[in-house]
């Protein structure tokens, strides 16, 4: 090995690449390269070496009523579940941020859903919400008409509840960390100057929590796309059409060997997520500049 090589190897740049290398290789191999290949596929008419057909696959995709339904459902789900989740986890975080009986136990209990394997929980939910399940048995005994939870518009509600149950602990921990980083003096000063509880919350807590909030919002949105796993385990590959999500569509396209629609749908979805996240990040930057 020549001395020039050695000198170059000692540099900082090498260390950076060495540490980044393994994860970069993994990321490229399993995510980036397949996605770029898929992106290319979405403009051709056959898998591997098909003709270039421009936006044909995208028009086909948008003509598919099932795709439109799936996209609508996914958006609806995110629009309902994420604000609800953040509101609830913020409430919990604020409650648990003050001295409370059994506080640490409560905190742990909210974290539990995160570590429980989904598959085991889903079985219980299935039994609970089935047409002939526990909840309907209770309703029946109380004299109410039973509801087909999984085969009606109620199904979306159930998945929203499941999503909140699963993610509330995680969001709560993030928000708690944010709450604890707000200096106590601010509150003391505010109360000395006669600000009420609500005023303190609105003008101190929420304002100083906003950077954390952006992060929580981002994570929650991304997690809302991941709810497919629960839905799939709960209701199978063709659930009631309120529950039919984008990932159901892609999953079914995969099994039907429809690589074109699959890749086109994936590209559209990634596009939407990128636009949304970059919008959020930009808003966060704006906010920071504003507070500074």
């Amino acid at each position, binding site marked *: *090995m020549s001395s020039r090589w*050695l000198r170059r*190897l*000692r540099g900082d740049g*090498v*260390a950076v690449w*060495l540490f980044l*290398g*393994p994860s970069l*290789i993994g990321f490229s191999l399993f995510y980036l390269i397949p996605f770029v290949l898929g992106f290319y596929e979405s403009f051709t008419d*056959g*898998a*591997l*070496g098909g003709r270039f057909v421009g936006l044909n696959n995208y028009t086909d995709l948008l003509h*598919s*009523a*099932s*795709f439109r*339904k799936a996209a609508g459902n996914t958006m609806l789900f995110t629009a309902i579940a994420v604000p609800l989740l953040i509101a609830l986890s913020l409430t919990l975080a604020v409650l648990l941020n003050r001295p409370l009986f059994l506080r640490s136990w409560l905190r742990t209990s909210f974290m539990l859903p995160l570590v429980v394997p989904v598959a085991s929980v889903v079985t219980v939910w299935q039994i609970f919400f089935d*047409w002939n399940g526990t909840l309907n048995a209770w309703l029946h005994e109380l004299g109410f008409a039973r509801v*087909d939870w999984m*085969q009606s518009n109620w199904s979306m509600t159930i998945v929203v509840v499941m999503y909140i149950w699963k993610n509330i602990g995680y969001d709560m921990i993030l928000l708690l960390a944010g709450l604890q980083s707000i200096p106590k003096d601010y509150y003391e000063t505010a109360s000395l100057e006669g600000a009420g509880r609500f005023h303190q919350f609105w003008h101190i807590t929420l304002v100083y929590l906003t950077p954390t909030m952006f992060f929580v919002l981002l994570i929650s949105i991304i997690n809302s796309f991941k709810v497919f796993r629960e839905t799939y385990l709960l209701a199978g590959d*063709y659930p*009631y*059409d309120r529950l*039919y999500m984008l990932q159901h*569509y892609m999953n*079914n*396209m995969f099994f*039907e*060997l*429809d*690589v074109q*629609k699959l890749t086109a749908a994936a590209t559209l979805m990634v596009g939407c997520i990128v636009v949304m996240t970059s919008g959020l990040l930009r808003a966060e930057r704006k906010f920071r500049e504003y507070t500074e």
Partner: protein
Amino acid sequence: MKNTGLILLSVALIVLTLAACSSNRSTSGNGDTAEGTGMVSGQPGTTGANSDEEAMSSNGKKTIVFSSFWPNEQYEQAAKAYEEAHPDITIKLQYGLSDEYSDDGGGEQTDADIEKFTTSTNAAMLAGKGPDLLDLRYLAADDYERHHLLEDLQSRMDGDKTFNKTNYFANVLDGGNSETGQFSLPLSFSLSGMVGDKAAIAATGVKFDDRAWTWDDFMTTGRELVAAKGKYDAVIVSGEGYQVGGKDYFVRSIVADNYGRFVDETSRKASFDSPAFASLLKQIKSMYDDGVAGSAGRGYFINASILSPEDYLTSLHAFGDETAFYVKPHADEEAAGTSFETRADIGINANSKVKDAAWDFLKYLMDHTSIGLPINKERFQDAIQVLKEQGTITPPSIDSQYSKPFKVDSAQLDQLEGFADAAARKRNESGKVLDIVAANTDAFFTGQKSAEDVARLIQNKAMTVLNE
């Protein structure tokens, strides 16, 4: 110097992973280069890559790769005979089954093999490779068709003067026809109908014409049979043969028999929300309520699929001394006739380099194999003749129970071709829509939901499937 050591280590690791990948590929390559007609089990599909080169080898010898999940004696014989007649062609048979099938504990291995077979064939087909000729059992023929991975055989049949459609059971042959062409040809088919206890029916004095009856006629006949209080309580029991199925199976099999009535695959529309489907559900329920359909034991009729001439006689014999084969009732708008299912459907890979040779071999297979009920009329008659000459049939023994040989009934056997000629409706035995139908009707039969609610739910899900 610590840095260098680390770099060396990581480089070594990367090289190792890459080597692992490529070594994998080279082992599968070894399997591919196996010569001759001997079976290459395991890696189906992958061989196609090599067949391109082999097909164009210097001495003009062509190789047709023919892939099938189940090993088949008939395929082997046909391949051997064809190779002798055409010295310039080599036929390579590959099977998806890795071990010889055995009844004890082989099931799991078979399932794993099927999965491996479908995924590797799918991947190879999508990549424009794969075998030249495929037995489509376990493969997603519809999906292949939609993605233009199979050769259109309609134009082949039309353009080939040596292909004479009248040699075959034309209704069955056209059964695989879709609006865009025909992408597979069956070597064999099965008939689906009912075996009835002729003596018991005659004793009740009830008369009917099974060649033309609709479900309504069947209901009327059924009520008369029940009212006659003859040998059996029920007229028909859901299920296939002695395998008793539930009400959901009953619905499923009727929808399967009349698939085209509820699902329009061409314009991707389902019509389960039509009054026809709700009334079908009600009709089935009333069949159970009136005792026309029973849920245990057996009735005057038993659903049966006829797989071969021998199977035909064995089924008739097994269900009673004096029995007959009856045509299933049909829906009002449908043509009367037997419903059938195609078997041993063969397709040609659209990306094959030896399509002409594969087509020629496919024709040879249609004319020279005798699987089940052969599609070729001459082979069909041969099979019947062979059975007549044989004189007796020894049914396969079930659970080591000795079954007595019985005499071949020539008169019954002669009727079989008539049923085959009358084949009119193609059964659609599998599919997501049928699964949805079967899975969602239970709430109606238990009286928890109305027929209309169930029909709406099925329509809702079926449309999701069809609109994808």
